[in-house]
């Protein structure tokens, strides 16, 4: 313990050297720009910056990347809240409540909560990273295909509670999402499915363009349809004076379990190879819905709806470093690219580095801690820059959203196919919303569809098509049982309430 504290002290001392602080600030500014601009991802930015870190000290170079990674994961929420366009994929779930709050004139408060929750989630996962990285990585290694499938089932089990008012339509939305995830090249055998001979569909329906279309373009269509008087939206409230509306002590106390739950979920999901901050944000949100006393309010613009995904997605950034540092396996696409930064400095992440380069490893932990604190500064800068844009007349905001939607989807792969996907999903989103189908469950299905199919098919192939594999492994069985219970819970609750109502009636 004493040695660990000593190493921590060294890590903090090392990170607080002026050159390292400067490196983190530079990383933060790049991350902020990347996060705000739709279509530019943290993975691409890290890949672009790695060559510049070659001439730096290993710690300095890695700190730039860590700071960039943490800030970009947060900054995507700024445009998600203000314009319904996620600057980064992990901000997708923040759209649901964040933008509703912004429409009510509470953009500052929504953004303040996003900053606070992101910082808290990041700091929480840093502590986990430092203290329990080794036990966490051993749990993560136990996750096989059956567990991944069970996790997908657990995620899907909340689909009835999020989105529109009709439970049936929400479930249909999720199933449509699951189906859309099957487009493209089959993940197991490589067969082309539903591509109609069009090469743009070989990689399937690209996720971010689809989300941009579903949320941003359909929203502009709806605003135009509702009528724009003198270029301003009907029923739109001007923003409160945009000060950073940090949550009050009462709000923090009220949300303590949401923060803790999302922090744990985000860190654990971050440690799982192949699933990253986006999935973490989704699970953070869905579990917040599941455990909430008022699940029906999610999606209407409540702070829990921002606190849960934002805590989880930033917690996943620290979590993603756990398998990288302890086992040498990246936990996300960004950390996979980050391996390059270690390698060009002659370092190979893994158990040996944990033992032989302790000072570097603890400097990384300390770097994570300060990078997450820098999110507050990033938030202040970012919000000052873009929050006032909300009050611009809609004949400026609307066209700008459409432009960002087009350039954002194009810039991901420099492909017009992605723009066509955005356009198509803009129309689909508009029609589905008009018919009362929930868009959030559809996104849920699209996120989890691939994971569900691949893990189910692989688990069954490996077990000689014995479905018992799904319920004989303890983690998988536990997750499936939890999913079934949570699906049945509303019915049980209804039954109990009915019984109580009858008793009360009889006694009165």
């Amino acid at each position, binding site marked *: 313990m004493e040695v660990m504290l000593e190493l921590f002290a060294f890590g903090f001392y090392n990170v607080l050297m002026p050159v390292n602080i400067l490196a983190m600030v530079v990383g933060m500014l790049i991350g902020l720009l990347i996060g705000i601009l739709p279509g530019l991802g943290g993975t691409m930015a890290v890949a672009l910056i790695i060559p510049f870190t070659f001439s730096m000290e290993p710690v300095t170079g890695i700190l730039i990347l860590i700071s960039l990674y943490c800030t970009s994961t947060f900054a995507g929420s700024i445009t998600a809240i203000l314009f319904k366009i996620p600057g980064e994929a992990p901000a997708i779930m923040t759209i649901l409540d964040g933008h509703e709050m912004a429409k009510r004139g509470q953009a500052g408060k929504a953004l303040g909560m996003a900053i606070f929750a992101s910082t808290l989630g990041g700091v929480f996962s840093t502590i986990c990273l430092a203290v329990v990285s080794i036990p966490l990585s051993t749990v993560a290694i136990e996750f096989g295909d059956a567990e991944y499938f069970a996790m997908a089932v657990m995620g899907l089990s909340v689909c009835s509670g999020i989105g529109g008012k009709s439970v049936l339509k929400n479930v249909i939305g999720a199933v449509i999402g699951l189906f859309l995830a099957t487009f493209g090249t089959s993940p197991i055998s490589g067969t082309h*499915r539903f591509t109609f001979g069009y090469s743009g569909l070989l990689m399937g329906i690209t996720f971010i363009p689809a989300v941009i279309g579903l949320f941003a373009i359909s929203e502009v269509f709806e605003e*135009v349809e509702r009528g*724009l008087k003198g270029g301003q939206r009907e029923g739109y409230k001007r923003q409160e004076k945009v000060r950073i509306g940090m949550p009050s002590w009462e709000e923090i106390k009220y949300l303590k379990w949401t923060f803790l739950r999302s922090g744990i979920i985000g860190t654990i999901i971050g440690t799982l190879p192949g699933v990253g901050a986006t999935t973490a944000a989704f699970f953070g949100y869905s579990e917040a819905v599941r455990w909430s006393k008022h699940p029906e309010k999610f999606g209407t613009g409540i702070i829990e709806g921002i606190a849960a995904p934002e805590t989880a997605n930033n917690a996943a950034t620290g979590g993603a470093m756990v398998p990288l540092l302890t086992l040498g396996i990246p936990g996300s696409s960004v950390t996979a690219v980050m391996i390059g930064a270690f390698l060009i400095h002659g370092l190979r992440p893994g158990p040996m580095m944990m033992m032989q380069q302790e000072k570097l490893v603890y400097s990384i932990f300390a770097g994570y801690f300060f990078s997450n604190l820098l999110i507050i500064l990033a938030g202040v800068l970012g919000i000052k820059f873009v929050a006032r844009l909300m009050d611009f007349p809609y*004949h400026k905001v609307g*066209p700008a959203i459409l432009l960002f939607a087009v350039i954002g989807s194009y810039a991901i792969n420099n492909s017009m196919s992605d723009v066509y996907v955005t356009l198509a999903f803009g129309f689909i989103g508009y029609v589905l919303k008009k018919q009362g189908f929930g868009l959030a469950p559809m996104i849920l299905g699209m996120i989890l569809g691939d994971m569900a199919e691949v893990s189910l098919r692989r688990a069954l192939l490996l077990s000689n098509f014995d479905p018992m594999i799904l319920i004989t492994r303890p983690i998988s069985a536990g997750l499936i049982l939890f999913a079934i219970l949570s699906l049945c819970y509303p019915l049980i609750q209804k039954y109990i309430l009915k019984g109580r109502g009858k008793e009360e009636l009889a006694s009165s």
Partner: protein
Amino acid sequence: MNNIIAGLILIGLSIFFFFLTTQFPIVKGYQQMGDAFWPRAVLFVLIGLSVVLILQAWVKGKKKQPGKKTSPEKTLDRPALFKTMGVMIVYILCIPYLGFLVSTFLALIVFSYLMGDRKASRMMYFSLGMTVATYLIFALLIYTALPRGVWIFKSLSNLLY
């Protein structure tokens, strides 16, 4: 009635895609649980849920008292919506031909007009400003290969990036 139509459309589409799954090639080694297995399972569920949606709407429609008037629908600006949708389609289809910058500049002027701006100079300045900002950030700063278009538009974009 809307739900019945939505349910029927979903069933129709599901049957169409189900038919497409029969044309997937069977890969050696994956005969038992091939590539059609998962999409078919999902489509089965979708058909089942659509049937429930139709039945639910039908039962509700029967229960509804005849002659009871529903509240009048809020007035919606459908012409503006259809124009915006049309311009959006034309804008995206024009990008490969006119190039990103020219088509964006023109589309932004039209969008501003459709969304209520009536001052020509303001529309021009806004459109030009946004196009230049996009060019500076995406083409010059991060080297995004923006579509160049064809013919003179290609020559024009070659001059710029």
